[in-house]
């Protein structure tokens, strides 16, 4: 048991892993279930890594690899921003920046029936949740949360959408609000929706606010927290 300490999960969690690394050995887990997220795969008893990034572990039993990239790999329970590409009889076809377009069933809305199918024009921007993401299948989306409520899912009107990396979008959603948004929010009022697929939607009263906020966010990608604060302060001074 002690000899396997090097391959125990604790040694890899929060570390950088590369494709081919075996991070878990299932033979040491007897009656325990674990859940694998993106970037991990099971070969018999070995759990190996499929993409470079940081191995993350969430308390009971979830493991996944986190990295920042410009392409999105769909994963269940992710909330993403999609663009409606086509409207079919049973599904809306939605682009979520993944390797394949996703399907949004016309009935996957709160209280959705055949009678009240919403009308989305091609190019509409919607905030959706990924329900199924199986390899070899188009991902399936839903405009409700797990309990069937609409909450904030659905069509986003007006505003401006821009694309960033998945890492930046995850930073924008981090739970103590990230410094850029914190600082910007003190002086400007704007509305923001961040999808895990790297799309960010912004709305504000004046277009200039939207331009300032969007550029500040895009510039903050490679900056540390302190640098982000300084950058935003400078920016706000300049536009006054």
């Amino acid at each position, binding site marked *: 048991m002690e000899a396997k300490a090097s391959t125990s999960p604790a040694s890899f969690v929060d570390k950088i892993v590369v494709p081919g690394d075996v991070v878990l050995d299932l033979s040491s887990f007897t009656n325990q279930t674990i859940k694998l997220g993106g970037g991990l795969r099971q070969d018999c008893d070995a759990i190996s890594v499929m993409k470079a990034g940081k191995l993350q572990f969430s308390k009971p039993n979830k493991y996944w690899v986190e990295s920042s990239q410009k392409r999105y790999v769909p994963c269940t329970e992710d909330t993403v921003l999609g*663009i409606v590409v086509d409207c079919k009889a049973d599904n809306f076809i939605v682009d979520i920046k993944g390797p394949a377009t996703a399907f949004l069933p016309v009935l996957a809305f709160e209280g959705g029936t055949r009678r009240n199918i919403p009308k989305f024009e091609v*190019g509409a*921007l919607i905030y959706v949740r990924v329900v199924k993401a199986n390899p070899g299948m188009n991902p399936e989306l839903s405009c409700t949360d797990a309990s069937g409520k609409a909450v904030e899912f659905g069509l986003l009107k007006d505003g401006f959408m821009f694309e960033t990396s998945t890492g930046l979008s995850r930073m924008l959603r981090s739970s103590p609000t990230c410094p850029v948004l914190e600082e910007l929010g003190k002086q400007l009022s704007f509305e923001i929706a961040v999808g895990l697929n790297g799309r960010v939607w912004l709305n504000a009263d004046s*277009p200039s606010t939207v331009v300032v906020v969007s*550029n500040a966010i895009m510039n903050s990608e490679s900056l540390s927290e302190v640098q982000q604060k300084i950058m935003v302060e400078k920016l706000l001074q300049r536009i006054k």
Partner: protein
Amino acid sequence: MDSRLANTWRLTVNERKFIETALLSGIRIDGRNPYEYRKLSIKFGRQVLAHSHTCIEDGSSEVQLGQTHVMGFVTCQLLQPYRDRPNEGTLSIFTEFSPMADPSFEPGRPGESAVELGRIIDRGLRNLVDAANIAALAALLTFRRPECSLGGEDGQEVILHPPEEREPLPLIVHHIPIAVTFGFFSSESIMVIDPTHHEEAVMAGRMTATLNANGDVCAIQKPGGEGVLQSVIMQCLRLASRTAGDITKKINDAVEAYKTEQAVSKIKRHPASITLEGIGSGGNVKGKQNLSFEHKGVSELSRNLMERSKLASEGSCASQNDGEGETKLSELSGNKRDGGSTNLVGGPTSWDPYSKGVDSDFLKASLASRVKVAPEKKPDSVGERKPTELKPEEPPEDNKSASMKIEASEAGLRKDGPKTLKDAVKPKHKRKKKASAVANKS
């Protein structure tokens, strides 16, 4: 089909609306003014491929215009010229969109936009136009082709001189045409310079004007889209000529900086070139001849440089080389196939654009440092080594003196000689300049 659908970039209704409304109040999504150009940075050879020591040094450039990156790379090839144009080469442009850059770029055959961009470097997509144009120019400006001459028993063999033996020659670039793209939006009054990817997706019409720093319009491309008023076009051209001036200055500054850097780094490269030359000239009689001839030129030159009078040095250099210079000149002019234009026609203008500025400090720096370096390294064979070591520096000066000679002799010939297309293209003031240069010299 499905994956192709997923890879295409889409514009949402929201973005389209926002870009248009923001533009109505003069705001662009990247925070620029409607008439503001993106930030331009140019890198060359070594800076592009930091560890490469070989032939990739010259004639490559990396241009970054905002977030658009373009790499330019110039190569040359010795070919038989077309029968109807025996003294001209050809220039072809190839473009490639790397699939690494954007998911909408597919590998394989060049797409429609790649072909359009490549045909003339002032048409394309996503405002690659402007960046690609700058990259191509910057690469061409720093490219130097290896020198070639006729030799062999019957004087019909073409000898390509490796860069160690004779300094490669720069290309003759008459002027620098800069492409500036404008985007027009449905409400006629809105016009932006250098549109971004998003703006290109929204705009109703596009126009690319290619101008040089003198304000001469070289080309205009208006691929479909909305009609534009004549007054708007004139306004565009005014804006474009201003922008072209700025960009030309930036390109020239970058080229100058690169050349001085290269001249400095040349000193370090020396030991390698000595050994190579030793092998090369051992078996080659012609090489030896050149060596002695060039040695003479150098000693003369360095003496003259001490006097600090450039004009005088060139004059005496030309006269000193009289005998050999003459034969060499004929060799040169007979043989330039690859340079686009020949010595006979383009020779004098090779002077004009920038070569003049470079080599004075280039030579001074290299000569000064040479004197310092050489004795330290080989204290016992200074006398022998010096000529060979100086040699790589010599050819450009030598060639220049030759071209000066052509200039002098051509000045008379040109008046009644048959005119070529090149003559028609040349701007007037250049000729004046040349005439005055000749006058100064005599």
